[in-house]
């Protein structure tokens, strides 16, 4: 138990097959190096770095599709996994970051000090690398490294606009919060290692299995709490959400957008993987540990959603509004994660647990586009008018009909109204919760009330845009950014129409490696029926 995984004295050169599964990460690392070298060849490196980063991200995205999921699952002596969930997340993340870079071209690029580009894109790609690693590890050591690799560049990104006082404050707040929570997390993980003598979460002899056999203890609960603290910070679950509005307000718009989806999504995928390992090691039985975990996550989700929505009511700034809305959405998704741990009360099995994962993945996919669209429009309007106040959006329906329409589409989708994909995502959530019955009905109620509440503040923005009038001049957004916004809105509609196939895709990819190896390989070849 206390020995190292493999006999000492065997230096290890990973072969091509091992590396191949992580081609996206390798492309990202190559892109980081390329971005750093760009200023040696280009006089004004900002835009050039943007293009280099874009090429790197595209290459990584293509490699995700090319490589796909390989059936072997475990890599690098169990330190990393390349399973359907991680591949799905990587695809989403890379698409999203490509959108962020395009958004950067249309919003911040002209105002960024010439020469800061290399740093900006190094940090952005570094954080992306960390977030994609977060989704593909089930080893405590790698988990810590991935979380840090995702967090540390984000802190700098939050304060990247050095001349903005709000940015400096946001960055500082973010660092202090992040340092505190990640140190708590590392402390908890060290306890796990001390208790069970292994860094591996799943697999034979892994943490999850040892926990299943030895049962809970006070120390174990402390460790789990601290893990939830660390990941809760990334997800911005409620007691750890304070950084979120300030950072979103202080950071430049594409950084806010990046953090709103990528950081949360990576945290959720990692949380899902850990919880899934716990649940599968205990064979989805109704053990006290799993029950408590489920209640913990469910309550956390309900509180997060409620706090996010109520706080969003009083916001006057579009970025703060979107920040609280992102907190609320994180709450919805946390509610679903609570399903993962405890299979349904009626019948416990893997299928419904992976259905929960499917719901989260679908939700993440939709959430990505609606947030990207909303932030893009906000960024474009800020660039043209220099304002982030919602009140200044008055008359936008006339001043820039296209932007107003795109923003409205994204906001309606965020509420969960048809004809946008947010609707099916929300319905999915309700459906999954109701399937499980028992106390999850409470969550159904909470989310229902929250959805109604959220309608008010999202629609208020739309009301300001279309009904309030203003004599301000029309604005002409940057075409690239406008394109991103339009594409997002279109995708939201498309995802509603093509709901069935996309949901099936999410179901297809909602499998974790190590959860149940036989079902994993068997089910991965056959597709899941839509719910």
């Amino acid at each position, binding site marked *: 138990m*206390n*020995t*190292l*995984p*493999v006999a*000492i*004295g*065997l*230096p*290890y050169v*990973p072969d091509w097959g091992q590396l191949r599964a992580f081609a996206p990460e390798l492309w990202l*690392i190559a892109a*980081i190096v390329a971005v*750093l070298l760009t200023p040696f060849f280009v006089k004004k490196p900002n835009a050039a770095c943007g293009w280099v980063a874009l090429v790197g991200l595209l290459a990584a995205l293509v490699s995700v599709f090319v490589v796909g999921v390989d059936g072997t699952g475990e890599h*690098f*002596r169990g*330190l*990393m996994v390349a399973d359907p969930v991680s591949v799905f997340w990587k695809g989403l993340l890379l698409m999203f970051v490509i959108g962020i870079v395009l958004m950067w071209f249309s919003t911040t690029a002209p*105002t960024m*000090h010439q020469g*800061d580009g*290399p*740093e900006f894109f*190094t*940090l952005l790609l*570094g954080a992306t*690398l*960390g977030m994609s*690693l977060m989704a593909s590890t089930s080893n405590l*050591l*790698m988990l810590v*490294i*991935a979380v*840090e*690799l995702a967090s*540390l*560049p984000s*802190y*700098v990104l939050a*304060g*990247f606009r*050095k*001349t903005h006082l709000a940015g400096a404050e946001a960055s500082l707040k973010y660092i202090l919060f992040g340092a505190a929570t990640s140190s708590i997390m590392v402390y908890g993980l060290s306890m796990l290692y001390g*208790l069970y003598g292994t860094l591996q979460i799943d697999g034979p002899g892994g943490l999850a299995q040892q926990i299943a056999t030895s049962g809970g*203890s*006070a*120390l174990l*609960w*402390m460790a789990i709490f601290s893990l939830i603290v660390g990941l809760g910070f990334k997800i911005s679950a409620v007691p750890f959400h304070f950084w979120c509005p300030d950072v979103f307000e202080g950071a430049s718009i594409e950084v806010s957008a990046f953090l709103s989806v990528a950081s949360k999504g990576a945290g959720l995928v990692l949380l899902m993987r850990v919880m899934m390992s716990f649940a599968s090691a205990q064979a989805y039985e109704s053990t006290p540990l799993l029950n408590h975990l489920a209640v913990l996550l469910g309550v956390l989700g309900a509180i997060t959603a409620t706090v996010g929505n109520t706080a969003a009511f009083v916001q006057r700034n579009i970025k703060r509004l979107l920040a609280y809305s992102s907190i609320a959405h994180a709450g919805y998704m946390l509610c679903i994660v609570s399903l993962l741990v405890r299979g349904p009360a009626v019948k416990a099995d893997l299928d419904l647990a992976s259905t929960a994962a499917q719901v989260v993945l679908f939700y993440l996919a939709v959430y990505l586009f609606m947030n990207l669209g909303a932030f893009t429009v906000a960024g474009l309007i800020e660039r043209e008018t220099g304002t982030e106040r919602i009140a200044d959006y008055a008359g936008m329906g006339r001043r820039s009909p296209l932007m107003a329409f795109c923003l409205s589409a994204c906001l309606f989708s965020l509420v969960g109204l048809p004809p946008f994909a947010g609707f099916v995502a929300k319905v999915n959530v309700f459906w999954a919760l109701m399937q499980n019955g028992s106390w999850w009905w409470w969550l159904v109620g909470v989310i229902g009330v929250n959805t109604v509440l959220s309608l008010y503040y999202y629609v208020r923005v739309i009301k300001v845009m279309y009904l309030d009038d203003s004599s301000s001049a029309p604005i002409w957004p940057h075409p690239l950014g406008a394109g991103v916004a339009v594409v997002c809105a279109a995708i939201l509609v498309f995802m509603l129409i093509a709901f069935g196939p996309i949901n099936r895709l999410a179901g297809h990819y909602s499998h974790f490696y190590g959860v149940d190896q036989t079902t994993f390989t068997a089910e991965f070849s056959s597709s899941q029926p839509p719910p």
Partner: protein
Amino acid sequence: MEDDAMMIFPLAQTIAQPPDAAASTGLFYLFAILAGASALGVVLSRNIVRTAVFLLFTLAGVAGLYFLLDAEFLAAVQLVVYAGGTLVLIIFGVMLTSKSPGIRYEPKIVEVAVAIGVSVVVAAALVMAIVRQFPAEPASIERHPTIAELGQVLLGDYLIPFELISVLLLVVMIGAAYLAKARRRGGK
């Protein structure tokens, strides 16, 4: 004659007394008290520079304990990285800012209560865990003391984290350098 001796005493090569038990126990208490007392000092001291200096002694005490456990490499690394590296920067920062206003932090009574509550719970859980889960007699520990083996593990089983940490450090270094760059005058 040598061979003869080896035949009679095949274990002669390995005869080695454990280090003087009394001295080792004494040193254990010395280092443990050093680490513990200065950790208390870190928490209780109101002067932030003194806090940092107390932290130095805590780290040094822990390093001493590592030495007693025959984990010499770990001890040396503890000294190099934490005591000699990180803490210097902390002390640097603390000293440069310690004379500025607002440095005295007076916690509210509620905060003190919460802090005490949390630490009591954590301490109780730790003590319970140590009492329950660890046997009174230490199990014989398999030693992996040599640096060569450590290096091979780093470049073997843990090759990927090792390489990723270098990417992490590169990115973070760039970020730190960016933040430390002088604020431009007249910029936007």
